[in-house]
């Protein structure tokens, strides 16, 4: 690949939710992340780590509490009652559950052309281009006049993908797009996304808790834990040589279909309550190699040799440790 050109940049982004009892939860805390043009970036972590929140903030449907997000050099402003700027239409989100992300009461054609009509395309052209997109995602154009209940999960996710593509996005953020699907549909939909990204010259953030799918399809992988980024690297490097203890634990927990009966390794404990994140390194209560300093010092996302990870043992305490 040529020189990496950033298309979507997150600088020191935090997202805070206010609960009904007025306590605050910082779901994403000071995250830096860059998506380059033409790249597939995998974003992994356990549920509750803030990866979906980050995805939503990145397209501007959730307000950030700190930091800035820029898309093609322009700020991504949170979506509010005023008009979303035209450039931001090139930034689209695909949701996890195609059973709830599509409207069961409207014909698929009507749902697909909404965005096009809003951007001034006439109805006939909008239907024609929607039909073409449906064909591209492997469905027939008669889909336009049907309802979602007539389709299986995999087919619905194809429809959701077609809908995201109607406005010819440059960046797609796919939030667990295959985890609600069946075994054979998972591979089909993952492949479809990869092919579309390559064919249409898009970039994609692929959010998933399944590291093995991310390993196969993404160029770079970012690992999140409790609202913080803990490791970002080229996918193959992260797989062959994970640096952060959390990344290591994630990889070891994947069950492998080798027929040899090897047991995946458990990472004991649960993700802590994000209202009360542990002091120091947020992973230290579950970390198998934590030392006393880990509960006091907060690690920075810093380079260890050529790679970025946030672990005191890799970075700040490296000399002490070795």
């Amino acid at each position, binding site marked *: 690949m040529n020189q990496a050109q950033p298309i979507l940049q997150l600088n020191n982004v935090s997202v805070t939710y206010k609960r009904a009892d007025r306590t605050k939860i910082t779901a994403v805390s000071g995250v830096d992340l860059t998506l380059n043009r033409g790249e597939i970036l995998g974003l992994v972590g356990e549920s509750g780590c803030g990866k979906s929140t980050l995805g939503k903030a990145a397209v501007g449907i959730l307000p950030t509490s700190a930091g800035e997000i820029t898309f093609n050099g322009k700020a991504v402003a949170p979506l509010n009652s005023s008009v979303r700027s035209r450039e931001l239409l090139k930034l689209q989100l695909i949701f996890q559950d195609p059973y709830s992300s599509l409207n069961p009461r409207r014909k698929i054609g009507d749902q697909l052309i909404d965005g096009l009509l809003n951007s001034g395309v006439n109805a006939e052209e909008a239907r024609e281009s929607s039909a073409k997109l449906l064909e591209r995602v492997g469905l027939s154009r008669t889909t336009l006049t049907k309802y979602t209940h007539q389709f299986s999960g995999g087919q619905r996710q194809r429809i959701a993908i077609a809908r995201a593509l109607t406005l010819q996005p440059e960046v797609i953020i796919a939030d667990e797009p295959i985890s609600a699907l069946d075994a054979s549909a998972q591979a089909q939909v993952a492949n479809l996304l990869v092919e579309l990204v390559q064919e249409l010259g898009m970039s994609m953030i692929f959010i998933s808790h399944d590291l093995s799918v991310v390993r196969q399809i993404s160029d770079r992988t970012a690992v999140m834990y409790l609202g913080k980024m803990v490791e970002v690297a080229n996918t193959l490097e992260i797989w062959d040589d994970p640096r952060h203890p959390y990344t290591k634990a994630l990889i070891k927990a994947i069950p*492998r279909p080798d027929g040899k009966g090897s*047991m995946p390794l458990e990472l004991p404990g649960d993700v802590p309550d994000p209202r009360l994140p542990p002091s120091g390194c947020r992973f230290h209560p579950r970390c198998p190699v934590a030392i006393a300093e880990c509960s006091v010092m907060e690690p920075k996302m810093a380079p260890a040799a050529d790679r970025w990870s946030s672990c005191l043992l890799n970075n700040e305490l490296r000399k002490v440790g070795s």
Partner: protein
Amino acid sequence: MTLLEVRDLSVQLQTKTGFATAVDRLSFTVNEGEILGIAGESGSGKTMTALTLLGLLPQHAKVSGSAKFNGQELIGLSSKEWQKFRGAQIAMVFQDPMTSLHPMLSIKAQMTEHMVTHLGISQQQALVDAEELLADVRIPDPKKALNSYAGQFSGGMRQRICIAMALACKPKLLLADEPSTALDVTVQAGILTLLNRLRKEHQLSIIFITHDLGVLSSITNKLLVLYAGREAESGSTSTILQLPRHPYTQGLLDSLPQPDSNEKLLKSIAGFPPELGKQPIGCAFAERCKFAAATCSGDELLPTYLADSHKFICAVDPFAGLSINQVRP
């Protein structure tokens, strides 16, 4: 010792257009202390098979064939007779621990109710036993947990509670329907370890249902691969995952991310499974199969039996005589 012996089990469900076959002449056995894995996609009949073994099928479903549990026929039991088995000797853990626990009842209330009914013990004794059970599935502070509510636990902890609840009446057979699918991999690994330990310590037999071959590889001894309600292949887990003979099993394995591949695309199986009630005569997988030939459709196919109870149903048998490196390079 054989605990469960299922012979030619068929289940037909009522649809708008008449009866549709959801489970088509399945036969399998589960021995004591053994974990049988049932692999298949949605619509393959795996959940319907489990529901049959619990007597929980919809009222209008037609069931034929036989399922003998400890020598006792289960098919055709009255709902009163079912109570002796369901929950007591055969228990179930469901996929989604977020919805299978009652949100408004304390864990205590949910755990002890069936213990008092099935075991005839006092509420006090049930509480003592429940505390032990929770400790057994590694719930920290079981006493406090008993007085808590489902919402106070994470998904993994809830699934542990569901497992403790299923084990309360010391069942011989546990049906686990996608028990780890809704969980994170790190938590899933813990649940698998737990089930494997319970199997060893309590001589528990488990039917583990999932579409995840990785999970099945780590925990099961035997596998039954279903497609569109029918058996595609069965045998020991290691044989099937290393030397599959049915193109569907092979396709499923290939469609998983390969840990040493440098390809960006996954090898997916084209097409979709047939709809309920529209399975063709012959091989239901034929229309998606790259090895399909004229012999695949039209007639009933006969199974091929190999050594080590390995069985598959494929008229073409494209992987005959291949070694492990040729089948799974």
